[in-house]
């Protein structure tokens, strides 16, 4: 998990604020979307002699029901695969995950054990299927926490920032958010493991809390953008109240960005959980988890490399799936993608 940049701290005139998401491909979507330098805030020198240029083709994006792209399709297939694995494990697995078979220890792939067996003779395929459950549960809970707390925080901070009397509230919220960023998910999870007992629960909550700033940022910048738009001015001139504007104008317009962020945060959660379990600070034995399988495989690296292969492969596939899905969704939703092209 360590390899995921999360957005770093800083203030109003900081180019970082423009980096859309804290996830891996945040700025790295297929065609590239963010260029903080070009929109660097605080740069608006008084431009007295320039009025808005004639725009010819803004927002001419075709919003077909499903505009598919390769990233999205591959990502969706992988994500569905992982979900299917987890769901099927509730109904059926080849073996009982705790069924120990000393005779069939450390086997490689065979018809009976397609993915082989571990040092206790337990079926690796069964464990991979059970592991998918934990992986997805951690992802859902962590992203749920981050989304449900982070998004309102961001929206509220942006709403307050409009008023002279509320600007400081918005600023304080975002500064607190920035300080939270100094605690990467792994660090927070280790702290939780130290204070409470190591386990799936604290790990999920820690990863979720660490992901809050990402959502808050995306929601805030999206809300600021919407609030600054002429259609919100029009709504105000039409006597809509702030809650109505937030509900009917802001939320639908930032939903896309938040969904993208959720997809990316899901990938980060998967990596975080695997890393924690690898350290022995996440999911505890005997619950099957990909990270711990990988950790246990370490002592057999020279003799049975296959043991590391399967959990490693599925961690990578799950992360790849959510990242690709996020990329594909970003191409559809990112407002900057549509403004291009002029005569």
């Amino acid at each position: 998990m360590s390899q995921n940049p999360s957005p770093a701290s800083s203030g109003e005139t900081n180019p970082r604020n423009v980096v859309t998401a804290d996830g891996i491909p945040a700025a790295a979507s297929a065609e590239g979307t963010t260029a903080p330098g070009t929109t660097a805030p605080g740069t608006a020198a008084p431009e007295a002699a320039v009025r808005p240029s004639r725009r010819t083709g803004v927002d001419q994006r075709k919003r077909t029901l499903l505009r598919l792209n390769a990233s999205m399709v591959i990502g969706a297939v992988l994500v569905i695969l992982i979900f299917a694995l987890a769901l099927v494990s509730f109904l059926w697995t080849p073996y009982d995950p705790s069924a120990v078979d000393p005779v069939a220890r450390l086997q490689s792939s065979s018809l009976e054990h397609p993915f082989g067996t571990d040092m206790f003779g337990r079926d690796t395929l069964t464990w991979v299927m059970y592991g998918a459950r934990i992986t997805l549960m951690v992802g859902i809970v962590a992203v749920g926490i981050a989304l449900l707390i982070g998004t309102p925080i961001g929206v509220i901070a942006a709403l307050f920032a409009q008023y002279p009397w509320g600007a400081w509230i918005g600023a304080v919220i975002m500064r607190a958010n920035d300080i939270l960023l100094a605690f990467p998910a792994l660090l927070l999870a280790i702290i939780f493991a130290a204070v409470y007992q190591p386990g799936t629960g604290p790990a999920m909550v820690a990863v979720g809390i660490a992901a809050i700033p990402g959502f808050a940022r995306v929601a805030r910048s999206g809300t600021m953008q919407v609030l600054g738009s002429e259609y919100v001015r029009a709504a105000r001139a039409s006597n809509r109240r702030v809650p109505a504007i937030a509900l009917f104008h802001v939320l639908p317009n930032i939903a896309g960005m938040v969904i993208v962020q959720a997809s990316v945060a899901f990938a980060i959660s998967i990596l975080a959980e695997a890393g924690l379990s690898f350290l022995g600070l996440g999911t505890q034995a005997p619950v099957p988890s990909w990270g711990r399988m990988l950790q246990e495989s370490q002592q057999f690296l020279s003799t049975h490399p296959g043991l590391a292969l399967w959990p490693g492969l599925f961690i990578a596939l799950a992360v790849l799936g959510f990242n690709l899905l996020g990329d594909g969704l970003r191409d559809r939703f990112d407002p900057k993608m549509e403004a291009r092209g002029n005569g």
Partner: protein
Amino acid sequence: MITYVANRALQFALSLIVASVAVFALMSLLPGNAAQVALGTNATPEAVAALEAQYGLDQPPVLRYFDWMGGMLTGDFGTSYVTGAAITPVIVGSVQVTGILVIASIVLAILIAVPLGTFAALEQRNWIGVTISALSQIGIAVPNFLAAIILVMVFSLTLGWFPSQGWMAPVEGVGGFLVRLVLPVVSLALVQAAILTRYVRSAVLDVMREDYIRTARAKGLTRTKALFVHGLRNAAIPVVTVAGVQLATLLVGAVIIEQIFVIPGIGSELVRAVANRDLVAVQGIVMVLVLLVLVINLIVDVLYPIIDPRIRTAA
């Protein structure tokens, strides 16, 4: 410019104070105080009380906080309740090890990612560009511990080129130090390079679409030359941001790699302290890590106005 830097420095100091309060509160005020945790759940109330008195844990939290902060400001992180040893030397030694590891990794990642990402952007429509993009996307999905395991399997267990674990300080022997450095650094750097490559590619693509690149071409520069003269410095702003964030996450993320390669870095110390239920040590190490993350952010903040004159004058 001076106002800007002063502003950032002030924010840094404020963040540090708030973060220290948060760490302290999390560690000291939550159920199961340090003495209880150190002695385990079976300890008698008398034993716990004795330990509390010994380390001043019966004092009010505010006093203890200032005590702790005051100690840290003079470079004293306190004494472990578990081992009874001073924590400061452990932190100083392990931070150096992790520092070497992390800085070597980010440098290697940048050296790989900047040329590769730029190339991928320039050859965007070629199979080369597409291949680089696809590879980096896959690279991002590989957790660094998986990369480490694969590297150990190939280069240590199979080929025997590098040791599979261990650490040697440079003063003990440069050759031994370097040979042990390779695998951990590469496993950290590969994944970071994959991430950074995508950012570089995306930043370069964005820059290539800018009007000033068109202006530069209209002046008589070729597309590639226009990118090198005008584009890269503009693309540097988002890339510096990401590299700073990566450095910060590497600092903590090195934990797992240090475990795999048995390196006495700060991550290893942190995991050991957690396993020993040594909350004083955990508290100190966490604070050092948070401090380092904030310092990295401050450095990145100061880099912006150096790169971009607009930020220089605006703030």
